């Protein structure tokens, strides 16, 4: 392939930015602005940084958002006025222990869906998240359950269930969630209202079957952001929340949340991944026996050793060991996958010197290997020019194969 660098750069320059990406940028910046607007400087930044650093950033961020309503907060009771006041909703949220909600994005038919369960103290007990493919097209649709610091992520399109240990990150995140004190948020709205930068309008229909409509408009230099909260008059809980951008006389929907139920018992099976395909591959990143211990070896030496032992295990049909060396894949899954492909590993032809992985961000090493394989009765030498090897996430002294083979 003969390509000139300028040709590639020019092509990149002429590629248009998809509308979806523009919306994502707008949404991300608005969430950030909202975050820093509503909270004290340090906690807001801490939370934002935490969300970004989380390995399951989007999932954790989503959890943070939905858990807001479940966190016990200090609040003043209703003012005594017969007219509705936002504090009344804060009071109602105080006793919420379970929540089921849907999160809609513009131009997407399928919403994200969340089921949240907290204990009496407001601590998170269980979470289930349904994430449609549009949320991360590279992953495809995902089902996620979280309990006691471990998240299981079912990547449906890839036929893989990955277990990750997120206890520390999520517990830190939940502490930060407390910073989302709705009372403080409300005070902030009132402060902005006092500065002429936010307007709060409450419409309370005389018909108690109809929801109270709270319209909050945040003033910007070029555009305003409007949030519309619909409050159930009987329960005083939020039924829905939608956000709009107002510019040039136009109103553009940015996103909406629909709160389907509060305090309704959630079937415990919701927090278990059920009906998984029989051939689903399971990868448990929380196992302590994944990979090989580096010991006193150099990084290059351990990379080459892992590569050799991985292929040795495949040749010996020791799928449990090979699975451990590829990051916690179960032996049965690995065996089933190889059988389905009719692939057998016969002998190692060569294991070369490890070098930096071609994708620096992987922080791994690449080991060039050649292995004799049999497929459909045919024997051939299969090259693996850059078998990836790197430390296990969270276990820096243990090394595994990554990136497929």
């Amino acid at each position: 392939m003969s390509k000139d660098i300028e040709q590639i750069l020019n092509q990149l320059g002429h590629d248009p930015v998809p509308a979806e990406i523009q919306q994502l940028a707008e949404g991300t910046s608005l969430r950030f602005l909202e975050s820093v607007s509503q909270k004290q400087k340090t906690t807001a930044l801490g939370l934002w940084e935490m969300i970004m650093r989380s390995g399951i950033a989007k999932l954790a961020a989503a959890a943070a958002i939905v858990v807001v309503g479940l966190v016990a907060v200090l609040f003043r009771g209703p003012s005594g006025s017969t007219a509705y006041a936002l504090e009344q909703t804060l009071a109602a949220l105080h006793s919420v222990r379970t929540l089921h909600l849907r999160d809609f994005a513009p131009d997407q038919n399928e919403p994200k869906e969340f089921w949240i369960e907290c204990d009496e103290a407001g601590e998170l007990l269980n979470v289930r998240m349904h994430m449609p493919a549009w949320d991360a097209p590279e992953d495809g649709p995902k089902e996620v359950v979280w309990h006691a610091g471990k998240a299981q992520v079912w990547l449906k399109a890839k036929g893989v269930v990955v277990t990750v240990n997120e206890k520390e990150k999520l517990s830190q995140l939940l502490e930060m969630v407390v910073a989302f004190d709705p009372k403080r948020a409300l005070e902030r709205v009132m402060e902005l209202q006092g500065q002429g930068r936010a307007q709060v309008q409450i419409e309370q229909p005389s018909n108690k079957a109809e929801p109270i409509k709270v319209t909050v408009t945040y003033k910007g230099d070029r555009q305003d952001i409007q949030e519309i909260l619909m409050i159930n008059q009987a329960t005083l809980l939020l039924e829905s929340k939608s956000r709009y951008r107002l510019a040039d006389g136009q109103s553009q929907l940015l996103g909406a949340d629909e709160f389907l139920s509060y305090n309704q018992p959630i079937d415990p099976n919701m927090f278990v991944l059920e009906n998984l395909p029989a051939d689903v591959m399971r990868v448990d990143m929380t196992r302590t026996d994944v990979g090989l211990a580096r010991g006193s070896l150099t990084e290059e030496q351990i990379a080459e050793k892992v590569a050799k032992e991985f292929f040795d295990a495949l040749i010996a049909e020791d799928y449990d060991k090979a699975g451990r060396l590829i990051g916690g894949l179960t032996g049965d899954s690995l065996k089933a996958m190889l059988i389905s492909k009719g692939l057998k590993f016969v002998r190692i032809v060569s294991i070369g010197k490890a070098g930096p992985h071609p994708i620096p961000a992987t922080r791994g090493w690449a080991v060039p290997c050649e292995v004799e394989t049999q497929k459909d009765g045919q024997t051939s030498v299969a090259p693996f020019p850059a078998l990836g090897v790197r430390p296990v996430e969270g276990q820096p002294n243990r090394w595994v194969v990554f990136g497929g083979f």
Partner: protein
Amino acid sequence: MEYSRRIEVFTKVKDQYLQMVTAVLWKLTGDRQLFEEAMQYTLLGIWQHIEKLDGDKAPSYIYRIALSANSKAWRDRVGRNGDQVLEPEAVDSMPDDKAGHEELVAKVRQAIARLPENQSKAVVMRYLEQRDYDQIALVLGCSEVASRSHVCKALAGLRARLRGCLD
């Protein structure tokens, strides 16, 4: 700076530069998740350095923040190509020439993230934003000749890094 003033400046900067930052980061990442991470880092960077963004040098700082965010996002990335279990189906299903091109473009993007600051700024403005050299010079605070030099050095650096892939 007062907290309310920080928010005011941040909002102004966001309104003024979001479109530009979005285009630059998208062209440098080409991947939704990576883009989102880079965008988050950029917003955080803008917030942290908000005092510097309330003046004439704001455009230069914005580029610095966005390109630094792009580099961080690439560095942080250990998933996707790295984390995929077994062979990446998407790549498998592509024709060889398309897969090869996508891989090459990804390498170009990564290589830009590793260029010295002024070179990466210059090459991004010149090619990804198709700007003239006088505009580049204005942002970089240098002469037009120097801006051409930054672009030339960047191209040479990219060619050197990608020598094996471009042949």
